[in-house]
């Protein structure tokens, strides 16, 4: 079980360390601690239920970034079989911030693509903190086109703090790469399911996020900018990130409420990292059920509905002339 607690879980963390001690004592056979263990377990669950029923936007952002949270390759490993990873954009290089390839879910072949973060310093550098370069978006598009060619659905897993800002990214056309994906994904002739599994930051997320179904896991965020950067631009300080997180309405519930995503995938109590198996099962079940619906639609129906859905997003009013 997770032991990296958030500041807002202090109370749980204390009870948890008592629980660990009680379990140790019990295991040593000196004292029967079963009553204490039962009591603490119940208390922890109660506290978690209370805390997790009233999370703020910023707290959800923190959960989405937890270091033990499952990443794209964890999902692929645990919900798929026969994964064949495919590399490279055929122009520049293989961007390790985006992974993708063929995989089978319950025997059905899909093209699965996602941003990949690293768990330790070395991996984080290799994965560029999950911030893709243009070649990452171009690799993703190449794989999506393969999926279209061989008539297989596309699954994308979104988890990025943003597209990489840098000299090389600009030289190679970061803007063009993302733009091209938006255009091509909107008319791709196979089903596309996009799932925000962690962070969904701006164009970097949307670059693999135009789908027939766009789902968010319960404790993830998706917006035009991170709360920190928003705070720095609008309030001219990094300290208003909590305020910015609320103002941006970036949580799954707000995004669903505003009709900007299609659904929410529930997470285990305490977040996906508390019980990855449950998170994997929920994601898998969602993919399978959505695939069943989408596979029944013709390519034309899919594309029309996809374009109509994104075209309807936005709130405008007609002023009197």
């Amino acid at each position, binding site marked *: 079980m997770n032991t990296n607690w958030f500041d807002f879980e202090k109370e749980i963390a204390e009870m948890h360390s008592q629980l660990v001690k009680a379990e140790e004592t019990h295991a040593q056979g000196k004292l029967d601690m079963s009553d204490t263990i039962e009591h603490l377990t119940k208390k922890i669950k109660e506290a978690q239920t209370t805390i997790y029923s009233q999370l703020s936007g910023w707290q959800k952002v923190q959960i989405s970034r937890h270091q033990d949270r499952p990443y794209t390759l964890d999902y692929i490993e645990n919900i798929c079989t026969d994964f064949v990873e495919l590399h490279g954009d055929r122009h520049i290089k293989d961007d390790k911030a985006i992974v993708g390839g063929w995989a089978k879910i319950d025997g059905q072949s899909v093209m699965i693509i996602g941003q990949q973060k690293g768990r330790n310093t070395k991996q984080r550098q290799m994965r560029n903190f999950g911030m893709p370069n243009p070649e990452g978006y171009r690799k993703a598009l190449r794989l999506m086109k393969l999926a279209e060619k061989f008539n297989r659905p596309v699954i994308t897993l979104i988890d990025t703090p943003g597209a990489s800002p*840098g000299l090389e990214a600009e030289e190679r056309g970061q803007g063009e790469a993302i*733009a091209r994906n938006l255009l*091509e994904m909107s008319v791709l002739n196979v089903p596309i399911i996009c799932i925000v599994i962690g962070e969904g930051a701006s164009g970097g997320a949307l670059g693999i996020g135009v789908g027939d179904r766009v789902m968010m896991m319960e404790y993830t965020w998706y917006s035009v*900018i991170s709360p920190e950067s928003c705070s720095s631009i609008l309030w001219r300080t990094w300290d208003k990130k909590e305020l910015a997180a609320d103002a941006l309405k970036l949580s799954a519930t707000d995004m669903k409420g505003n009709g900007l995503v299609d659904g929410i995938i529930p997470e285990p109590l305490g977040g996906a990292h508390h019980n990855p198996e449950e998170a994997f099962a929920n994601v898998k079940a969602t993919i399978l059920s959505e695939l069943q619906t989408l596979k029944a639609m013709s390519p034309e129906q899919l594309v029309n509905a996809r374009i109509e859905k*994104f*075209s309807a*997003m936005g*709130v405008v*009013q007609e002023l009197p002339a």
Partner: protein
Amino acid sequence: MAVNHSDFDDLPMESSDSTWYKRTLSGILTKTKDKKPTPDGLWEKCKRCKEVVPSKEWLANHCVCPSCHYHERIGSAEYFEILFDDGNFTELNANLSSGDPLNFVDSAPYTDRVVVAQKKTGLKDAVRTAHGVINGQALCVACMDFAFIGGSMGSVVGEKIARAIDHSLATKTPFLMISKSGGARMMEAAFSLMQMAKTSAKLALLAKAGIPYISLMTNPTTGGVTASFAMLGDFNIAEPEALIGFAGPRVIKETIGKDLPKGFQSSEFLLEHGFLDFIVDRTELKATLSRLLSHIQD
């Protein structure tokens, strides 16, 4: 070469940021000082080479300095005047205005900011769309206005561009997009973000229908605008020395911890790296568009 990117930092757009704002306060003051010696509006002083030019000549040259070719920023009214024959055009969806889907409040409520911008500029939002004729050829144009909250893209910008593309589709008219924007408008958050998907999807339909799309990038074109419609032209073109990029220069500078190379993210840089078809002087814009379209329109 000088890229003009010191003047959109105090704005609620994704590619600006606070440190940038502080550093350019002095720059903003300099600009006011520049205006002072200009006598009674009959003369214009070039912001770059400081040449003083009679206003009449300045306007006849489309606000391009006759001496150093500095392209002063202009808005949709000027572009429409430059492009459409006899200045005649029909505006589309002229009264579309912003909602406030998120009830967004930072230092001021978003609705107040919109009203202030509308009063200050006489515009309804950061893009105007119109159709008309240029040198006898029908053309549908969407042109952004930097004066309106930095040309930032919210629902109105996305919706008006989408409807202008619908007009192009319905009338089989070529589409010209003139971009000038710091990116997505923060106060509409994810609604702004989704305008990128919306406009790109519409452009996919335009492409399928075989209708030409020309994207003209002007100073500045950054953030979500670059990462959607601005980069999707059959022909991507730009005015000289415009700032064009995805991430803002300050963000990149802070990320890499080094000064940016000279001319980085300029039109000339993008041409060199293969992302533009050509750079066009504003004084040549109309003739060049006509010549380009003459090859592909029957």
